């Protein structure tokens, strides 16, 4: 296990280095003059030159890269061209909001999809409750393919504009989390619940489950102690992928709900070629996805002795 963990962490470090180089290069390959764009065509050339010097943009690209990396080590990510604020401050103020949204959405996904899928499997095993099966597969199939922003717009129209039960947008209190978290998680809940049901149906057909039923174990023990751990591998694997996807999903959802997070910041920074901010946010979001995947691999290796991941 220790060798597996070391190997997995080494792979993570290599991936992070590649991400660092790519995020830096990507922004510098976009054509155009970011300082002129930020200051406007009427800004005096002397002002543009002074700002370029201040931002290290008048140095060769390798020197800019080493300056960027040394800045990262000391926590200095540069200054946003557009807002004139330190990048670390811009990110710090928004990261917590995006993290809260993602964490709540992930909790909702795991907390609802697993029992929902298990319940659907128990009800529909051996061809039982045909109506439930049709309703479940149709409903979850539909919700799983509705894009997050479409769902967000529909939820706002119904629960905020028509019924007035919840805030339309912004971060105004606990109730303001409900709609963005719902928009971010409903599709994933539906998708994961379908997978959980299929995995659960497979587990329920296993001999050890028949043995458990033959022993007349209480349903609680039968499903939670014997079935759940055996379908956890697939659930965790998909859950990890969904968590990575949630990070990307925040971009659209934050826009619809005027949520003060990193999702809208990354789009704005790329569009405005605010390269210092864009490369930092891309690096951060990319690193988050890589770390999530590494953690999922490690957890799978630890929890499921049948898993072949450690041999990979």
């Amino acid at each position, binding site marked *: 296990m220790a060798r597996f963990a070391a190997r997995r962490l080494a792979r993570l470090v290599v991936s992070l280095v590649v991400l660092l180089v790519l995020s830096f290069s990507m922004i510098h390959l976009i054509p155009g003059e970011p300082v002129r*764009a930020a200051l406007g065509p009427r800004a005096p050339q002397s002002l543009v030159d002074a700002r370029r010097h201040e931002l290290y943009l008048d140095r060769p690209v390798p020197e800019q890269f080493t300056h960027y990396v040394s800045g990262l080590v000391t926590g200095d990510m540069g200054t946003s061209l557009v*807002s*004139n604020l330190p990048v670390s401050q811009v990110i710090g103020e928004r990261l917590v909001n995006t993290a809260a949204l993602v964490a709540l959405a992930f909790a909702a996904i795991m907390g609802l999809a697993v029992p929902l899928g298990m319940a659907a499997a128990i009800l529909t095993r051996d061809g039982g409750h045909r109506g439930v099966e049709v309703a479940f597969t149709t409903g979850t199939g539909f919700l799983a393919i509705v894009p997050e922003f479409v769902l967000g717009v529909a939820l706002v*129209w119904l629960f905020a504009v028509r019924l007035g039960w919840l805030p339309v*947008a912004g971060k105004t209190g606990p109730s303001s989390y409900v709609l963005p978290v719902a928009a971010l998680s409903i599709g994933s809940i539906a998708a994961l619940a379908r997978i959980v049901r299929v995995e659960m149906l497979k587990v329920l057909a296993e001999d050890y489950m028949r043995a458990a039923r033959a022993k007349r174990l209480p349903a609680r023990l039968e499903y939670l102690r014997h079935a759940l751990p055996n379908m956890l591998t697939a659930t965790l694997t998909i859950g990890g992928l969904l968590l990575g996807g949630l990070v990307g999903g925040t971009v659209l959802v934050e826009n619809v709900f*005027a949520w003060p997070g990193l999702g*809208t910041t990354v789009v704005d920074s790329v569009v405005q070629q605010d390269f210092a901010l864009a490369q930092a946010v891309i690096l951060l979001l990319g690193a988050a996805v890589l770390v999530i995947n590494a953690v999922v691999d490690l957890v799978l290796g630890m929890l499921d002795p049948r898993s072949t991941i450690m041999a990979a």
Partner: protein
Amino acid sequence: MKLRIAAAAACLVAACGCGSSDPHEAELARGGTYTEALGGDPGNLHPLLAQQIATNEVVSFAYDTLINIDREGKIVPQLAERWDVSPRRVTYTLRDDITCADGTPLRARDVAANYEWIKDPEHASSQLGSALPSADFTVESDDRARTVTLTVPQPYGFLVPASGLVPIVCPDGLKDPKRLAHATDGTGPFVLEDAVADDHLTFAVRKGYTWGPNGATTAAPGFPSRVVFKIVKDESTAANLLLSGGLSAASVTGPDRARLEGQGFEKSEEPGGPQELWFNQRAGHPGADPSFRRALVAALDLDQLTKVVTQGIGSRATSLTVLEPRPCRTETARGALPGHEPSGEGLAGTLTLIYPGAGGPTAAAMELMADQLEPLGVKLTLRGLGGTAYQKALFDGGSWDLAWLSVGLAYPNEMTAFVTGPPSPAGQNFAAVRNADYTRLAGEALKTPGAAGCELWAQADRALLENLDVVPVATDAVLGYARKARIAEGIFGTEPTSIRLLAG
């Protein structure tokens, strides 16, 4: 988010002398919160570093300027009760009752310190190149006489509107620029109370404020006790917030406006900046030939293009500058362009047209332009380019024949850099325009202040239009909706002292 309100709403400004359309006092609320949508996070709130439209609007609530400009484009007093101007010098005389938010009186030397701060290249102030053309000015002050004098080396016709619209920071704030990134220290009608990045900013009203434009005060009936700017980047979200009561005002110009019609909101419609067609006049490009330019403009149905590019709510452009509210209006486009007579004579070949963005109404209008020209033997290759890529292509100069853009000028003199001097990339003359009449008239206009200067600028702009160096086509309409509130457009967005909350 900029919200432009119809001229009638401007009458709410207390001292503007048109009280007949003011709402009855009984219709006005007592205090309350006014919430406006802002299209983006304002970032650093230091007013002398502000680069974005959103920042300029927000800081105008906490920082006053020496003068202001009313709806008719007239310069009116604010911190300065009067000013004496000559082509190279302006002397502002301050009111004697102005205080900073902490209660300390504002002295002439404090105002002068702002201009000295802007001059310092280490500060990289955004006011250079926008409000003030360059740093080679001198500033003097006299506390006893309450005067601040600015002198520039060359005659400059827009000296008062340019220098007088600099937001004035109080002395403590000027000494501590880092604090001003998230706090305010000015003489304005509001003080920043709370700011959450990318979410909202809350301003609290200042009591005893009596030095607004033309003497406007915060004691007027219906004046809000708080102003909240809510950062809303999506128009649909802004419309939803208006419908649910989460906003008092927002600008909605896209399809969501249909949901706001008939809901009892105060509606306003203001012209935005003109959108123009430019010809690349470098050697080897067909646009270098005046007869080609004339034939191509005659071949285009500019009315139809206007309808498509403005989604049916704009109008034909009448000027090269943003019209409202500006001290120098040059409505020169009327009758200067050839009529729609598509003969095709002198037209043939393949032309490359660049335009900003890749979709939306602009792309649709460019396709319409291609359709209009195709039967006449002109094949347009359309290139929609994003942000800085568009600017790079425009200023590199070689890869385009026609360019669609909105230069967005506040004053007519700002056009000079783009239509005189060496072609880009050596200069900023991206279309390689050579127009001797314009250069002569603009040179005279630059030295001539006031109405006479404006008349010369109008003649200079007309010289550009008659030579078809630039073709102003369409002006977007900026639609604003207000719920239980009335506001007026000011020079930086909503005029802070114009806001009135309605009861009910």
